[in-house]
């Protein structure tokens, strides 16, 4: 049994008695491996007695689950209405330049800091009242 098989077995065993266990399991797998790939989908499907199609359907529906791990650091930048009203679109090109190939800039819609945008998130750390240089700094430190 591969380590992955073993670990996913453990995750499924931990959650499978909960009502509607699939999302908690997918979050745990994503946290453990950085993605939910086809192999994981098959293992989860087997563990929950679902079809692989069912599991793949759920994985592909939600923005949070990825089929490949992201090896670069990720900086999430909010580009929803309130941050647009505060000028995020004017600094996004600068951010892309700062990121280059090294950092992945991910667009999210709303971090709930809407009076104080532009806002960004790195891991569980939030940043608000950003301008071009501040956002570039966060990207460089990511």
């Amino acid at each position, binding site marked *: 049994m591969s380590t992955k098989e073993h670990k996913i077995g453990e995750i499924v065993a931990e959650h499978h008695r909960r*009502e509607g266990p699939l999302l908690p399991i997918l979050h745990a797998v994503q946290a453990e491996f950085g993605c939910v790939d086809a192999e994981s989908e098959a293992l989860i499907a087997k563990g929950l007695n679902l079809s692989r199609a069912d599991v793949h359907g759920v994985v592909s529906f939600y923005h949070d689950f990825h089929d490949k791990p992201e090896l670069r650091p990720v900086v999430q930048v909010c580009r929803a209405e309130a941050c647009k009203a505060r000028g995020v679109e004017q600094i996004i090109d600068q951010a892309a330049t700062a990121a280059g190939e090294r950092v992945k800039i991910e667009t999210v819609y709303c971090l709930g800091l809407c009076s104080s945008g532009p806002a960004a998130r790195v891991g569980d750390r939030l940043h608000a009242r950003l301008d071009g240089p501040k956002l570039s700094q966060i990207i460089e430190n990511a």
Partner: protein
Amino acid sequence: MMPETKMVRISDDALARALGADELAAAFASKGHEVQRVSSWGMQWLEPLVEIDGQGWGPAAVEDVDDILQDGASEIAIGAIEQHPFIARQQRLTFSRAGKTRPLSLDDYEATGGWSGLKRARQVGPEQILAEVTQSGLRGRGGAGFPAGIKWQTVARTAAEQKYIVCNADEGDSGTFADRMLMEGDPFLLIEGMAIAGEAVGADKGYIYIRSEYPDAIAKMERAIALSAGLVAPFELEVRVGAGAYVCGEETSLLESLEGKRGEVRAKPPLPAIEGLFGWPTVVNNVLTLAAVPHVMAEGGASAYEQLGLARSKGTMPIQLAGNIKHGGLYETAFGLTLGELVNDIGGGTESGRPVKAVQVGGPLGAYIHPDDFGIRFDYEEYTAADALIGHGGITVFDDSADMGAMARFAMEFCAAESCGKCTPCRIGAVRGVEVIDRILAGGRPADHVERIDVMHNAPRHGRSQEQEIALLTDLCETMKFGSLCALGGFTPFPVMSALKHWPEDFTGKAAAEAEVTE
């Protein structure tokens, strides 16, 4: 002589933390002062806000620590926080503890009247709870504004072995943050409200579905549930974390997601109150609805609540002032204030100092309102009559640099990105909407290759003019509005059509200007 140790209060709300509250708290602690991490007052332009003996300083940075400690006569001093006009003019019920208590302190919660609603609810029993919640006039704060008491009665009257209370904390609307602030600032209040709902309808299990973009709220709610488990037992609560899908804020999609499925919207009927989570009768309410319940259930609370507000919009609404606004934050008040009062008097106009161009009320699916219509009063029916919505109470202000054509396009783009895919008007309509808006912005389009084929005798050979494209967009919006299963496809036309109606030059101006240059 040893310097006096001061009690310093700094919020641990996610917004304050994003602006350096943790570093600020550490700076005060390193100087030997006692730091209490409390909830946020909601004056977000002043975060991080430092409070010592009721006096406030904000926005404070680590460099300000010495000034604040020495004599307090700093540029950022705001005086007594409770007397600040932004706070003093509010009518805070749901947010009555904001700024005053430590979010995870059971002692603070109890000392400020916590659990008294639940105690009374348990004494008076289900029928009386249902009667009082109905009497209070409390309506769903998520956006639809359905009377909470009626929903609860339906669940209570449906016989079943299992029932659920589901809290919708998937606050995805841009410009809203009241759910987040409540869960981070007063988590026990939500727990109490859910336990009362459980008591009323006979449910012993509750789920709080929180979006994954709110890590602080998730952590706080989980801690609060663990701390209060004994107090609400036999009612049990569990946090479930969303996975980045905006549409899961729609109640049936949320239920699908809780069941571990794709967050696809269900057709209604059956109503979730009759066939909800796993097919059992389920109360699905927003955070703010459930958090208003403990006040309603206090002695005389229902009639006090009913006295506030106007017409059929009773009680208070935690309004969120966001976007390009000088005084952004949380403003809880009875229904009935005009939009002009909210944006100009309370919000202080734009932060940039430029004139207000547009205000979007109710999140990404809410209409853009022109300053000429600022007389509209905060009331469910008045907004509906104006082809607008209150939604979750978010107000996003734009200054005159906003390009409303681009905002309309974004509304369609957002709908296309977040559509669950179940119904055609939303899934395909949104994609076509982006295309049509692009063509309007480009001034129409030439005849395409099919129209130019010789055999297409009846096809127009002149392409489509801008006016024709606008007619097409109007028609598409009608289809989406009346043909979509849920509010995502059904309400996306509000921002689009309101932008087109009030700022047509933002749609037609660019192409016209380019044409002029070419000539």
